[in-house]
């Protein structure tokens, strides 16, 4: 009724509105770009002033942003429809990886398709929340036991396949993605507590299943100085880098730990240590706030989503992103064992950036394809 006069007095469309018409969420985009800029700046220092690596990373960002924009164009329903297919294909690829995959650094993670080398486990990071969300969509929530059990199988099969590679970090992120979908669907607390208790009981069993190097990493976490030149070296040098950074940091390009090669994996998994050394606690707070803002925006989108699938997908993607950040920072500062989880959008490495931005593309799709149901 009141729409006509309002339309006439409508001001010039804001940037947010313009972008939304192209199915891009401005807040997410700005926050992601901020992380990207910080990431490239740190990478230049962490890689030992390698412009090549920065250019490479920049290329991946561009690819990732294009993919994100494309992904955002498709409506969420479409993703719900293709979820089972993507999941099935990814599981098959994971099995193939274990059978014929390329081995690097003692783990079989890569699938070489001749024209393309990629990690199917990365795909699973997206396939998992999509599939669980799609499965729960349209079912009575909170889910019944049988639903839960089916969902658990859907989660545990890829987890087992990835953990077998072995790639504990990715496996944890995949299981987290599936778990968050269940959690937001209303997975009952008592079941969750029961599951945790069962997990605790199974811990000794799992300990035996762990590879020696994985066990060593956990032991190292407890006492890194016990073996300062062996497994503890990473964590010790990382703590030295972070601690010596202090409140304000040593300044860009002035971190001696990374520059003089004391810090291993300084441009990949341990890039956060370089950032901490050069930008100090204040720099970290800035980065952490940006990350939390991304998560907050994601949860906000989820809260405003219009159906179960969208809600669960958006919330699960957001929380997985946070877990990503938490595991990486936690391991670099010596709170968590060293599992190979990169710092999202900052660590050097192509697949994870594209995967993450694809996920944000889906979030944007959820945000920008809302229909005006009631107003």
């Amino acid at each position, binding site marked *: 009724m009141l729409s006509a006069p309002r339309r006439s007095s409508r001001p010039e469309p804001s940037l947010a509105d313009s972008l939304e018409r192209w199915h891009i969420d401005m807040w997410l985009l700005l926050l992601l770009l901020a992380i990207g800029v910080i990431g490239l700046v740190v990478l230049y220092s962490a890689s030992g002033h390698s412009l090549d690596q920065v250019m490479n990373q920049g290329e991946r960002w561009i690819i990732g942003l294009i993919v994100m924009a494309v992904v955002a164009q498709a409506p969420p329903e479409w993703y719900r429809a293709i979820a089972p297919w993507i999941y099935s294909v990814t599981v098959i690829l994971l099995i193939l990886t274990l059978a014929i995959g390329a081995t690097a650094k003692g783990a079989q993670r890569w699938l070489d398709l001749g024209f393309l080398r990629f990690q199917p486990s990365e795909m699973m990071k997206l396939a998992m929340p999509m599939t669980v969300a799609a499965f729960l969509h349209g079912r009575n929530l909170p889910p019944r036991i049988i639903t839960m059990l089916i969902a658990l199988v859907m989660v545990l099969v890829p987890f087992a396949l990835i953990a077998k590679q072995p790639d504990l970090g990715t496996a944890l992120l995949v299981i987290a993605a599936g778990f968050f979908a269940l959690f937001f669907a209303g997975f009952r607390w008592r079941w969750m507590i029961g599951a945790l208790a069962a997990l605790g009981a199974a811990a000794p069993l799992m300990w035996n299943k762990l590879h020696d190097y994985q066990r060593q990493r956990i032991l190292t976490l407890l006492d890194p100085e016990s073996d300062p030149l062996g497994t503890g070296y990473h964590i010790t040098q990382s703590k030295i880098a972070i601690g010596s950074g202090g409140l304000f940091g040593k300044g860009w390009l002035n971190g001696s730990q990374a520059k*003089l090669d004391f810090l291993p994996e300084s441009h990949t998994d341990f890039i956060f240590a370089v950032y901490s050394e050069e930008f100090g606690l204040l720099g970290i707070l800035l980065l952490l706030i940006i990350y939390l803002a991304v998560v907050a925006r994601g949860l906000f989108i989820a809260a405003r989503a219009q159906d179960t699938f969208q809600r669960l997908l958006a919330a699960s993607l957001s929380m997985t992103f946070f877990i990503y950040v938490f595991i990486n920072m936690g391991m670099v500062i010596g709170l968590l064992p060293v599992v190979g989880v990169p710092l999202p959008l900052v660590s050097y490495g192509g697949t994870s950036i594209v995967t993450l931005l694809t996920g944000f593309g889906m979030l944007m799709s959820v945000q920008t394809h809302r229909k005006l149901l009631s107003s």
Partner: protein
Amino acid sequence: MGQRREKFKDLHGEKNTFLNRAVFAGVTCLALAVVLVARLINLQVMNHDYYSTRADDNRMRITPVPPVRGLIYDRNGTLLAENRPAFVLEVTPEQAGNLDDALKSLESVIALTPKDIARFKERVRKTPRYRGVPLRNNLSMEEVARYEINRHDFHGIDVNAGLTRNYPLSLAASHVVGYVGAINEEELKELDSAQYQGLIQMGKVGVEKSQEELLRGTPGAKIIEANAYGRPLRELDYRKGAPGKNLYLSLDSKVQAVAEAALGDLNGAIVAIDPRNGEVIAMVSKPGFDPQLFSEGVDAVTYKALNTDPNRPLFNRALQGTYPPGSTVKPAMALAGLEFNVVAPEHKEFCKGEYMLPGSSRKYRCWKRAGHGWMDMTQGVMKSCDVYFYALANTLGVDRIYEAMSGFGLGKPTGVDLPLEKGGLMPSREWKRRARKENWYPGETLNIGIGQGYMTTTPMQLAQMAARIAMRGGGFKPHIVHSTEDALTKVVTLVKPEALPPIVLQNPKNWDAVISAMEGVAQLQGGTAYKIGHDAPYRIAAKTGTAQVAGMAQNEAKARAMETIPVHLRDHALFIAFAPADDPKIAVGVLAEHGGHGASVAAPIARKLMDMYLLGEVRYRDGTEPVAAVVADPNAAPTEDDDINDAR
């Protein structure tokens, strides 16, 4: 089917559950973020200093810069010890990969002995990571060239130019100059490691040892930034060290060479002192050794050979050899007789070739079996009549002899600024009771009266005794370092001679009597050193000595001809002298082991080096001639000179 289920969906409840859980998730995220921040505050704020230090420890490497060792010159400025550039093969084990393979490939280029490799592996264990460990010293130019051609094959193996100690005079001054050698484990425990940063050698004997502190200098350090692989990237800081002081010895290398040559094939020792200031002009011990062997790192076989050589080349006879002084003690004995008023110079004894203590049938023989006839003191000294001194000793008694001889420093180290000096023995009643648990027998007094029996002295003490007689009781503590020079500023600091408490006689004329008797030895017909003394262009005051090594049978009526006695049982030839007698400039003590008679063997040696010193061009490096040191009156106020010396 999906449609049907849809109907039962509680959309509102579902959304509520979700919102609750989203809030819970958000709060959990914040809580986890707080955990991260708390940990970061712990690392970056609370433990910031600790981790900063660790980061600096990581990147900073202190590389010691060893000081350049001071040079040693003689009084003329002739080099006695210098530093020569030498190429050292060093291996950094962390960069060389498999050590055994690396050494094997190296062996085709540079000769390595099993000893080199064993020594190297020992050093590797004790060297911090990423440091070069010396494998071989003194590479030849050819070896360096061969290495350079093949150097791309060798990782972590470097040829570095270093300095090695070189001793131009070699054997002639080996004991007195000494040598540097590798610091061994016991020394490592003792020394101040801060002063030996980067040094692998230290002075072991001679001046190199006694003046180690001065010669060594202070090490500096470079603080270098290095990466995780130990590769030095840049110099952050430089701590300046100080080179060692150059030393000018009072030693005269020309006199030293003459003395060394004069001993010929004999083993023995020669010490020459300037009595006017205590400066050691020459100090020879034969046989010598090549000090270079030690500074370059002696191998076990050579070292064992030197150590087990029956001629004991490593033994410094001048300071460590203790020998019976023989008749060289007679002037001091005569002086004691005069001073204690037990004889007058004119007092005579009859020498019939032997002496018997009253009430004893044991015969104490004079070296001249036929006897000297009536002897006064001058003649007793001149002709070295044993009977005269048996009688004198008997009259003096052991206590007074001990007092007189000790006054001349016999049986005690002279305190010369060289290591390992021995004291010898001046026996006394008290000593015999303590050491032998026996009473003193009068016959033993006779023996020490002619410098035999228990009495032993070093050649250094003999020279010093001559110097003190020459100075009529004055004299200085012998010393060999004449001056030190700052290697950078070239400021020279003279070492002040230390005057000894004078031997004061109640009747100073007694000096004249004894000295004139000693002049008689060399100047008058019948004097035992007449042969070498009468034609000298300066007056020599001297005393010969022949110290018995093997005992003689009581009934042996005639001394055996020297040639018939096995060498190791032949007498030691001794000689003390000073000259010019009226203005003493040099005092000499000579000992030729198993040389036979002092008069025929030791005296000509002394003459040769006195000629060299008194007639040759012996000056200090600045052209001045040696002069007498001023004996400071302990009661006088410090003079201006003292202040200047102290300020230096």
